[in-house]
């Protein structure tokens, strides 16, 4: 399982990049969901989000899941390309698979990579 140390993580398996404000779904989440077949981003650029607000809906062949905002702030950008290629979330969860970028953000209660890896191991 891969969890880069430059990122912060939530208990609901989102990652947050403090440097860029980008948000996505972790490697652990994508591997447990297995093949992702549908992604819908539920917020638009310019919208204000609170911590815990559902920002995207993801469906795999196994399950559907909501993605929650790990930080409060204003949505600066959404990854429009992802809807056409949902498999990007499986292939490159920390790169091309980003979902939204939040500006002026105030992160919620987040874990560092080591704590997140321990948290994932506890659940397996």
């Amino acid at each position, binding site marked *: 399982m891969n969890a880069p140390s430059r990122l912060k993580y939530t208990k609901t398996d989102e990652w947050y990049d403090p440097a860029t404000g980008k948000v996505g779904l972790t490697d652990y989440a994508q591997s*447990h969901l*297995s*093949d992702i*077949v*549908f992604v819908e981003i539920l917020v638009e650029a310019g919208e204000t989000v609170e911590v815990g607000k559902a920002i995207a809906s993801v*469906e795999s*062949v*196994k*399950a559907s899941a909501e993605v929650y905002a790990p930080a409060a702030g204003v949505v600066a950008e959404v990854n429009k390309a992802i809807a056409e290629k*949902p*498999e990007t979330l499986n292939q490159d969860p920390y790169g091309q698979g980003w979902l939204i970028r939040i500006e002026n953000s105030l992160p919620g209660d987040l874990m560092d990579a080591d704590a997140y890896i321990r948290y994932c191991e506890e659940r*397996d």
Partner: protein
Amino acid sequence: MTETLTPKVVEPTLFELSSPGRIGVTMPEPDVPKADLPPAHLLRSDLPLPELAEVDVVRHYLRLSQFNYSVDGGFYPLGSCTMKYNPKINEDTCRLPGFLYTHPLQPIETVQGNLELMYLLQEWLKEISGFAAVSLQPAAGAHGELTGVLIMRAYHKSRGDHKRIKMLIPDSAHGTNPASSGMIGLQVVQIPSDARGNVDLNALKAACDDAVVGLMLTNPNTLGLFDENIEEVIRVVHECGGLVYGDGANLNALLGIVRPGDLGFDVMHFNLHKTFSVPHGGGGPGSGPIGVAAHLADFLPEPIVGILEEDDEETPPLFGFIRPAKSIGRIKAFYGHFGGGMVRAFTYIAMHGAEGLKQVAQHAVLNANYLLARLRGSYRVPYDRICMHEFVVEGRFEGSDLRALDISKRLMDYNFHPPTNYFPLIVPEALMIEPTETENKATLDAFADAMIQIAEEARTNPDLLRAAPHNTLFGRMDEVRAARELVLCCWLPEDYSKPLTDEQPASLGER
């Protein structure tokens, strides 16, 4: 990956079987004066229907039915679906002419038998569940849920309590529960399970406040476990002014043993198509009656069946329709699924009686525990304790990338319907197994043997599972590609006078 799956047996369509001039029925000479045809511009020049003999049609559909897997064909342990055997006497009773040849708009005096059956079914469901009133109207389980949450909201509003907007739902509930709440605009708050698979009482207490509409509880839950703190759970929700909804989909485990109304549930739906043997899963319409405690009886959807005039020495009672005083209104045209649902369920209850229904629950629970005991050594069991009518195992093995899906596909090679996959979500690679009471020990053993054999194959020959099924009409479908490249290829022709083609009408634009 553009390979096309080819079935081992090909059944042509009726159009392909068609032969010009072949007919199945000879129409008699008309015994009434012939009427003129409508004007030519209203007539089609051609009607491209297949031309076949009766025997061609019968064999075509018989073959198609044999490609299917059904409860009549084999063991169907689809968890939380209660795929029990559907007794054939139900088919006789629901086709009795008095039931079959009636219309919902007939005057009530001409359908007293139908109304009496509905009245008695309401009474029996009340007795089975411990509720004060029942409406038979909802079309199926999730429709019953929607009706229930509408009633819960109407109850709070009738008391001037307008701030309740949250529905509490445990993570071991049926997926329809949050959907039903979301549908009427309520906020869903998920309550986690504790280490024994019960509702986490501390999390529940923390979530209970004066904004709570209620709790939707599936008990036994989707882990097949009876909540050990059920009375405390209900008390906590009632204390904050909330109501408790029971998802009756798992009622099969409780028949004649525990009555949800006695436990303190305020409202619950029944799945006549699960617990009471109405065919489902493609085999017929569902039916999701709803039962409520006394304080909610006035809110039931209209109409319910009641006695309009009491009987006396000379005349029987007059049954008719009643509108509860604060009814939420109609939630369906007419009265619910009468012939398909109510008559079959009535027959099932009448044939079993009180003692028989109790045995249904006992044997359903015994069968599930027997299977669990046989599988425990081969599959990891989360929340391992005495189960109710179903249980969940993990479809994965240490050091292997095989998944629940691979096990399910391989089970098809052994001619068993796979269990429910990937639900509940709180168990990784979940396989949810519900044998029901209708299976004998030999069938349960054959299934357990197959599951144990598959666990062995997973170790010795994992490719056998990855490529499964091998013995079915079609091999492994590419489910990922099917979902990602969704192609809808069926459209109505723009011009019925032309032969049907695969070509997409231009007016539909880019697909």
